[in-house]
């Protein structure tokens, strides 16, 4: 019969129309911003810098090795390395970034910087509501804005943060044992795995 296919299709649409009143899983949309979806642990938006302890300037894990700057696909990271060294979270003398800027209008959230970082210093944030009325200056985040505590990292990526902490503790203990028990206090930072470059 001509028109049978159309009627069959209309029956399907009617089923969907009325079905959306009875079964909740047919409704996939959420009325943001009144309602929000459950945060997804793996989600990634823009990078941030992790620091240990309470003071971000003292505890920044970043040692300004500039690997992430070099590897960043869209080149959105700008780092200035310090001339002097200062003690890091465990007391070892290290360089530190005097400037660390990320232009989030260029960043493409690819996570390559996180993967190449040998110090677990840069991780992905989940904040996405970053609208600003200053489209040039407002989208360049400096190191003060980027620095976030290890507790914050634990809050957004608990599994990954626990892994990182376990690894760092093991490495710190190893290097402390190497330096000898009495010097454990200033034996410090874990040595990174040797970068694979020639």
């Amino acid at each position, binding site marked *: 019969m001509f028109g049978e*296919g159309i009627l*069959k*299709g209309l029956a399907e*649409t009617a089923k969907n129309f009325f079905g959306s009143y009875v079964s909740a899983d047919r409704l996939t949309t959420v009325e943001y911003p009144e309602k929000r979806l459950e945060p997804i642990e*793996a989600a990634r938006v823009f990078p941030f810098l992790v620091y240990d302890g309470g003071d971000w300037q003292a505890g920044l894990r970043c040692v300004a090795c500039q690997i992430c700057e070099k590897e960043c*696909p869209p080149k959105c990271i700008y780092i200035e390395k310090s001339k002097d060294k200062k003690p890091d979270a465990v007391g070892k003398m290290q360089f530190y970034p005097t400037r660390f800027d990320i232009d989030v209008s260029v960043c493409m959230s*690819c996570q390559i910087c996180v993967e190449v970082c040998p110090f677990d210093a840069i991780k992905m944030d989940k904040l996405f509501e970053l609208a600003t009325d200053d489209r040039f200056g407002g989208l360049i985040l400096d190191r003060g804005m980027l620095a976030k505590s290890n507790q914050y990292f634990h809050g957004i990526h608990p599994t990954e943060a626990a892994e990182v902490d376990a690894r760092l503790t093991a490495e710190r203990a190893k290097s402390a044992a190497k330096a000898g028990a009495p010097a454990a206090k200033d034996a410090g930072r874990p040595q990174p795995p040797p970068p694979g470059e020639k």
Partner: protein
Amino acid sequence: MTASFKSPAEPKLNNLDLAPSSEPGISGDLLEVAMGPHHPSTHGVFRMDIVLDGERVIRLKPVFGYLHRNHEKIAENITYIASMPYTDRLDYICSLTNNWAYALAVEKLVGLEVPERAEYLRIILGELTRFQNHASTIGFLIQEMGASGTPLMYAFREREKILDLFESLTGSRMMCNYMRFGGCRVDPSAEWLDQVRKVVAGLPAFTDEIDRLLTSNEILMARTQGIGILPPDLAVNAGITGPMLRASGVNYDIRKIDSYGIYNRFTFRVPLGERGDVYDRYMIRLLEMRESIRILEQALKNVPGGPIVDPKSKIRGFRPKPGEAYGRIEAPKGELGFYLISDGGPNPYRYRVRPPSLVNLTILEDMCLGAAVADVVIIFGSVDIVLGEVDR
């Protein structure tokens, strides 16, 4: 390429055996219409210069390049791994298959082994990508016929579930950046695999729904059957691949021919069309979705444990030996290939993408000649392109 755009319109029109579109005795001019670059049917910034005789198309020139982003030259100036997130942006509906093709090319270049578990994950993610691509393509195609959104929204409802799986594994819905040279980036949990099984169990109901909704719809049949016919010999000569080629009845599926990855372990059929018209292309996509579900069911039965990345693979300081490699896969849109030449440095010396969308688009004029201008939109929609991949 320019030769094919200079259309020998008259002989082709004679072959099509159409009634004359203008009344004899009435004189008139040809009308030149620029369709796009901002046109709802063109899926992005794409322009067609159409010459019309009344309602009939007598010449059509595709104009692309509006979305050119210099992908290949950028890739020649950054490290190998840094190109991986850029491949997400080629065909931004199917980022995972793009990753796969690029990873395959680099693995061939340096001879990395992919662990068993990673191969299974690639199959699962690749077929999920194919499913959601075909679902949304069918939705877009029907929308271009004027069914304002109903099938598209049904397709998007299903696609949303798949994108949620991608997000919970890779961290991003569309720009997954998941494959790595010699494996994958994140090891999925057992819960994630259970979620996939749950979603896959719901997919056959969706294909049945689309089938009931559309396949025997008289309006759809009237609009698509006998429109935009692509003869198999022309399709082969023009280098068409993917569902478009198979809709013309040519049995060519790289999953069967090359059996890259571990596709030779799975049982699946390659659906073929008969006439090569728009309706066949619609049907092929629907049938391929069913075959994808079959592959997914087989792959999900026993995902092996073990590592997910080759221990020899490294991210930093990656310098392949001088040489060249071509890796190709059956992407949802056709043959996606990456050709790499290494001179031993940290950047590829040459990086070339063989995009299925661009090659499939070159045949647009031959399918549209003699068709009505309203059919051009449908024929164009049935090609299934993404401008990110056409212009690169």
